[in-house]
C-alpha cells in the first residue's frame, strides 16, 4: 500500500466532500478504500450514488463475531472505490468514539487494507477523544490532512487535532498540510495563513467555494465524477500525493496563542485592507500551495465502468480472508458474556511467575481480579495448608485509573507503571523477565493505546500487551484464550527444536482446587517413564519455559474441551507442535490408555505397562467389592460436565445401569464427549432444560442421581451425590466416587438437618 490518509476536520467543514473527491481522483490510477469515521455515516455517499449501506457498527451489533462478512459492509463505488462507514449510535447515547475503535478492530481482522493502494479515512475532528484518534495512531494513517475554513471553531478544531497527533507522534512528521476549504468569509485567508504559519504547516490546497459542490451533492456524485470545476484541483492534489510528499510534525498552539493569533490576524487584515485601499488580497504564502485553478473541464464522458456502480451487487466485493482469531463459545454463539476478558487474562497471566502483570484499570477491576486469583489459594491454604504462590502472591500491579484519566487519557500513567515495573529487581537482584499489560473496560472505552508500553520492551524483558479492554474483547474465557495465544505469539521461539523425552502440559484449570495435586500425579507418571516437563502452559511456569515451548516433543492437554481443542489447533497450525490425543486421565480406563499412548510415543511401553499393572489388581478388587451393593442400581446424571467417562466407566464396571445423561448448556464447553462403547445404549440429552429434571427423575426413578449441585429435585429415597467439575486424575477417581455411594445408601444418611427447612422460613427470613 502506498499511503493511508486521514482527513480530519470540524463537523460540517466539508471534509467528507473533500475526502470523496480525493478518493475519486486517486482512484483514476490506483485502488482506493474510503472509510467514513463519522457516526452520521455519509462520508461515502457521493461515491456510491447515495446508496444506503450497512455500517460496520450496525453489522457488529447485529451479528456474532464468527459471522462477520466483509461483503455486508463493503460497498463498491465510483471507480471501484471500496466504501465503508463506521457508523455509530444516535446522538446522545452510547459512545461514538468507542465505536470507531470497535470498527477498526473488525477491519484489522479482515486484513482489508492490504488490498488497496490508498486508504482515505474521513474523520470527525470536533472531539479528539481516544476513539476518534484511532486513525491518527501510527499503525493507521501515515499522512494527515487538516481541513479548515477561516472560522475560529474550525481552526480551533484543527489545532486540537494537531494536539492529538502530537500526543502520538511527538516530533515525528505525519502532517501533509492544511486543506483550506473556503467559506468566503471576511479575512478568511489571512486567518488560515496566520494559523498555518504559526503551526508551521503548508496550506496544501485551497478549495474555492463553488456552486459545483452543491450541484454534485444533489446528484449524489463527486465533482470529479461530474467533471466540473474545480475537479482539476483534486486531480492535482492526487498527483501530488502520488509523488514525494513532504510531511511535518504537529506543532499545536495553546488556546491562548490561538485566540491571540486569530484576533491578531483579524486586526492585521484590517490594517492591511486599509493600507491597500481595496486592492486584491494577496497574502504572502510561506509554503507554496497549488494555484487555485478551477479549470473548467469539458463534460467529457466518463469511461465506461467509472460511474458509481449503483446496481453493483454486494457480492462483487472481493473475498477477503477474515480472521476473527480464537473466539470463546460465548462470542461465537452470541451468548451473554460470562465474566470479562480482563479477568480471564489476569487470571492466566499471573501464572507466568517471573513476569509482572500491569493492570491498566481502575482499582476495582484489579481488586476483583485479585479476588478471583487468590480465592483458590486462600481456600487451599485454609483447607489443606497447601501454598499456591501464583494465587497467593500474584505479581500484579495496577495503574488505578481515576476520574482524570477517564477524561484526559491514562496512557501516561500506564507508561509510568510499566517503566517502574521494568526497573525493579527482586531480593536476588533479578529483573522481571516479561511485563504483561492488560487493559480494562475504561481503558478500552477511552481508547488508551496500551501498545505504547512496548516502547519499554527489551530482549531481556519483552512487554506483552493483551487488549482485553475489560469485556469489550469478550468473556472470561476469551480473556484466557487471548492470554494463551498472545503470550505464545509474543514469547514462544519457533526456532527451538523438539528435544527428546520432553513434554509440555497445556491447559490445566488453574482455578481448580486439585490442579497441583493432579500435576504431581502426572509428573510422577511421566517421571516413571523417564520424561520431563518443560512448560506448564499456563500454570506456575516461567518466561523461559514459554520461550522454549517448542522444545517439547509432545504436548499433553490438561482438558480436551472447547478451550483445549482451540489451543491444540493453534499450536499445531502456528508452530507445528504435536499433541497427544487424550487429555490428562481420570479413572482407570483413561489412565491406562493415556499411559499406553505416551509410552508408545516415547518408546517406554514397558514402563507404562508396569505402572498399569501396579494398579490393575487393586482396581478390579475394589470394583468387585462394590458390585454387591451397586449392581443393577439405576444411575441418572444431570450435569454441566461434558466428559464423564471416568465415573461412568466405574459405574458400568460395578454393574450399574445408566438410565439417562442430561447435560446443561455451559459457557465454557460444548459437545458431550465419550469414548465408552456402551454409550450408544444410553440416552444422552444435551442443552438440557433444568425445569424438566423433577418430572424426569420421577419418571426414570433412579437409585442414584449424580449432579453438580445437590438439590431437592430428587425427592424420596434417591441418593444424590455431587460431581466435581475438575475431578482428580489417576486410576481410582471414578472408583472412589462409586465406593462413596455404597457408604451413603440406606435410610438416615442424608442427615436430619434436612427436616429443618421450614425453620429457616420461620426464623431466618431475609
Amino acid at each position: 500500500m502506498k499511503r493511508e490518509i486521514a482527513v480530519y476536520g470540524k463537523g460540517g467543514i466539508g471534509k467528507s466532500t473533500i475526502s470523496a473527491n480525493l478518493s475519486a481522483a486517486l482512484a483514476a490510477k490506483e485502488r482506493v478504500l474510503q472509510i467514513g469515521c463519522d457516526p452520521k455515516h455519509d462520508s461515502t455517499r457521493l461515491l456510491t450514488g447515495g446508496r444506503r449501506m450497512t455500517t460496520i457498527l450496525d453489522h457488529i451489533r447485529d451479528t456474532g463475531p464468527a459471522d462477520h462478512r466483509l461483503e455486508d459492509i463493503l460497498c463498491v463505488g465510483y471507480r471501484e472505490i471500496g466504501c465503508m462507514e463506521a457508523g455509530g449510535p444516535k446522538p446522545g447515547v452510547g459512545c461514538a468514539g468507542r465505536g470507531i475503535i470497535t470498527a477498526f478492530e473488525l477491519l484489522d481482522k479482515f486484513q482489508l487494507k492490504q488490498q488497496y493502494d490508498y486508504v482515505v479515512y474521513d474523520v470527525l475532528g470536533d472531539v479528539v477523544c481516544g476513539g476518534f484518534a484511532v486513525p491518527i495512531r501510527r499503525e493507521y494513517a501515515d499522512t494527515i490532512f487538516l481541513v479548515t475554513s477561516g472560522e475560529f471553531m474550525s481552526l480551533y478544531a484543527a489545532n486540537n487535532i494537531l494536539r492529538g497527533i502530537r500526543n502520538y507522534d511527538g516530533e515525528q512528521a505525519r502532517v501533509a498540510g492544511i486543506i483550506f476549504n473556503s467559506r468566503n468569509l471576511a479575512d478568511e485567508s489571512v486567518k488560515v495563513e496566520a494559523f498555518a504559519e504559526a503551526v508551521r504547516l503548508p496550506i496544501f490546497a485551497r478549495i474555492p467555494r463553488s456552486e459545483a459542490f452543491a450541484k454534485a451533492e444533489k446528484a449524489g456524485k463527486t465533482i470529479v465524477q461530474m467533471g466540473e470545476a474545480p475537479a482539476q484541483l483534486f486531480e492535482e492534489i492526487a498527483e501530488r500525493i502520488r509523488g514525494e510528499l513532504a510531511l511535518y510534525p504537529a506543532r499545536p498552539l495553546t488556546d491562548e496563542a490561538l485566540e491571540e493569533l486569530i484576533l491578531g490576524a483579524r486586526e492585521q487584515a484590517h490594517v492591511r485592507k486599509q493600507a491597500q485601499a481595496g486592492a486584491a488580497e494577496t497574502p504572502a504564502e510561506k509554503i507554496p500551495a497549488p494555484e487555485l485553478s478551477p479549470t473548467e473541464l469539458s463534460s467529457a464522458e466518463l469511461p465506461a465502468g467509472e460511474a458509481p456502480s449503483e446496481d453493483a451487487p454486494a457480492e462483487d466485493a472481493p473475498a477477503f480472508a477474515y480472521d476473527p482469531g480464537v473466539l470463546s463459545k460465548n462470542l461465537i454463539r452470541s451468548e451473554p458474556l460470562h465474566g470479562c476478558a480482563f479477568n480471564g487474562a489476569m487470571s492466566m497471566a499471573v501464572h507466568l511467575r517471573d513476569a509482572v502483570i500491569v493492570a491498566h484499570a481502575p482499582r476495582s477491576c484489579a481488586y476483583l481480579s485479585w479476588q478471583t486469583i487468590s480465592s483458590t489459594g486462600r481456600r487451599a491454604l485454609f483447607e489443606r495448608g497447601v501454598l499456591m504462590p501464583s494465587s497467593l502472591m500474584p505479581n500484579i500491579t495496577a495503574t488505578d485509573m481515576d476520574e482524570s484519566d477517564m477524561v484526559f487519557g491514562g496512557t501516561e500513567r500506564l507508561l509510568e507503571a510499566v517503566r517502574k515495573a521494568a526497573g525493579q529487581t527482586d531480593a536476588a537482584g533479578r529483573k522481571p523477565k516479561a511485563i504483561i499489560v492488560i487493559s480494562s473496560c475504561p481503558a478500552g472505552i477511552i481508547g488508551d493505546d496500551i501498545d505504547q508500553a512496548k516502547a519499554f520492551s527489551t530482549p531481556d524483558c519483552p512487554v506483552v500487551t493483551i487488549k482485553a479492554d475489560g469485556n469489550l474483547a469478550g468473556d472470561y474465557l476469551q480473556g484466557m484464550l487471548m492470554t494463551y495465544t498472545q503470550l505464545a505469539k509474543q514469547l514462544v521461539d519457533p526456532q527451538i527444536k523438539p528435544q527428546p523425552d520432553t513434554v509440555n502440559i497445556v491447559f490445566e484449570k488453574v482455578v481448580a482446587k486439585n490442579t497441583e495435586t493432579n500435576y504431581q500425579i502426572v509428573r510422577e507418571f511421566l517421571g516413571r517413564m523417564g520424561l520431563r516437563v518443560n512448560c506448564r502452559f499456563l500454570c506456575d511456569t516461567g518466561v523461559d519455559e514459554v520461550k522454549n515451548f517448542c522444545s517439547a516433543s509432545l504436548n499433553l492437554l490438561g482438558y480436551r474441551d472447547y478451550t483445549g481443542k482451540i489451543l491444540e489447533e493453534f499450536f499445531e497450525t502456528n508452530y507445528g507442535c504435536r499433541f497427544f490425543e487424550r487429555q490428562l486421565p481420570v479413572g482407570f480406563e483413561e489412565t491406562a490408555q493415556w499411559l499406553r499412548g505416551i509410552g508408545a510415543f516415547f518408546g517406554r511401553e514397558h514402563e507404562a505397562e508396569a505402572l498399569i499393572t501396579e494398579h490393575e489388581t487393586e482396581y478390579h478388587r475394589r470394583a468387585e467389592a462394590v458390585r454387591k451393593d451397586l449392581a443393577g442400581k439405576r444411575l441418572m446424571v444431570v450435569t454441566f460436565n461434558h466428559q464423564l467417562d471416568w465415573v461412568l466407566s466405574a459405574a458400568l464396571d460395578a454393574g450399574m445401569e445408566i438410565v439417562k445423561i442430561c447435560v446443561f448448556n455451559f459457557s465454557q464447553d460444548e459437545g458431550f464427549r465419550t469414548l465408552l462403547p456402551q454409550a450408544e445404549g444410553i440416552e444422552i440429552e444435551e442443552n438440557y432444560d433444568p425445569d424438566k429434571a423433577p418430572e424426569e427423575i420421577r419418571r426414570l426413578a433412579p437409585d442414584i442421581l449424580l449432579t453438580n449441585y445437590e438439590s431437592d429435585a430428587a425427592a424420596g429415597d434417591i441418593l444424590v451425590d455431587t460431581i466435581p467439575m475438575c475431578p482428580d486424575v489417576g486410576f481410582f477417581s471414578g472408583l472412589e466416587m462409586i465406593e462413596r455411594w455404597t457408604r451413603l445408601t440406606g435410610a438416615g444418611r442424608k442427615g436430619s438437618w434436612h427436616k429443618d427447612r421450614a425453620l429457616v422460613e420461620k426464623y431466618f427470613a431475609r
Partner: protein
Amino acid sequence: MTDDYLENMVPDSLSGLIFGFEGIRNVVVLLNGPTGCKFYHSATADNQMLRQMSFDPHNYPMLWYFGQPRVPCTWLDKRDYVYGSEDKLKEAVGFLHENVTFDLLVIVNSPGAALIGDDLERIAMEAMREAGADTAIPVITVESPGYSQTVMQGYQQACRIVIDAFCEKPARRSAGRTARPKVNLLGLSIFHKYYQGDLQEYERLLSLCGIDVQTSLCCESEIEEIRRLPEADLNVVVDPDYGLETARYLEKNYGMPYVCPDGLPIGFEETERFFTRICEALGCDVAPLIEDSERARARSFLYISRINSLTGQPKGVRFAVHGSPAQKLGYSRFLTDYFGMSEDAGDIWETDAKLVFADGNIIGGLKARGHLFTGIETGMPSLGYIDVIPKTHLGVNGALLICEQVLNGMV
C-alpha cells in the same frame, strides 16, 4: 520476583456503593455493566448476608442474575458501549418488576458504563412506567461509581444517597424523649467481616445501658427504619472510616448529634470509654455495661495469667496490623496497652511479627513467602473459615474473642 511487586489490592468505591445498597433489606441492586463486575459482588453480598440455601445456579435465572442470588446485571458488551445500554436496562427492569418483589431498586453504573453517559434516571423511570410498576417503589440511580476512590467513600456515598432519598427534612424529632433513647449505628457495612456479630454486640451493650437501636444504616436496615432515622436521639459511629462523614452530614442537614471514636473502639477499655460517652450524651447509666466488661476482664485475666506464668507472654510478642486507619489504631492500641505486646508498624510484607491481624489476602501472601506467624483475620476476604456463630472483635465479647485468638496464636 513476587516479593517486589505484590501490593494489597483493595476494593474501591464501586464495591462500597454496591455493598452499601445491598445492606438494605429487600433491595435490588441492578448493576448496569458487565458480568465481570457482578460475580464478586453477588457472591460476597450473599456470603455475608445469607439469602440462598443452595449454590445451584439454576435457582436463579440466567438473565439477569447469571445463576446468583444478588446483584442482577445488564451484561453490557461492546455493542452496548457503542449504542448505549437503554434497551437492556429497560428489559432488565421489566423483568425485575415482573419476577422479583422489592422495596427499592438501585441502578449502579459500572466503571465502563459510566463512560458512555446514558441517562440512567430517565431510562429507569421510563422502564418502570412501561413495565407498569408501582410508582411508589423508589428507584435510585448512580451514574458514576467513582473511579479508584476508596471503598469507604463509595459506602458513605450510598448512605448519603439513601438518606437524601428517604429521610425528611427537617428531622421529625420528638420534642421530648421517649422512655428509652434511640441511636442510629453508622459506619457498619455488610463488607465488615463480622458485621452480624458486631451488630449483635452493639445492640446488647446499648441495651444494657437502656438504649435502643433505631437503625443500622445500610447494614441490614429496612427502608421504613431508614425513613425514621432522624427520629433517633444520637448517631453512633461504629467505624469512623465508614461512618464519620455520614454523621457529619446528618448533623449539618438534620441537626443530629453524634459520637465517634478516633479509631475502632476495640478492647475493654475503649469499649467502656466509648459507651460512657454515648451514655453521657443521652443521660443513660453505663454502669451495667461496665459490670459486664469487668466480668469479661476477670475471665480474660485468668487465661492470660496462666499463660503468662508459663511463658512470660503475651508481653513483648511482636504483632502487626494491616487494615483501614481505624482498624490499625483500634487493634494496635488494644494489643499494646492491654496485652503489653510490641507492634511492628513497618511494611507488612517485611514483618517478622508472630501475630498478624489482617485480611485473608495478606495472611495468605505472607504464608506463601514463608513467614512463620499466626494470622488473625480482621477483614475481607477471608481465608475460608465459615462462621456459623456470629463473631465480633468489637465490644466486650469482641475483646474476649481477640484475647482467645491471641492466646491460641502465641502458643
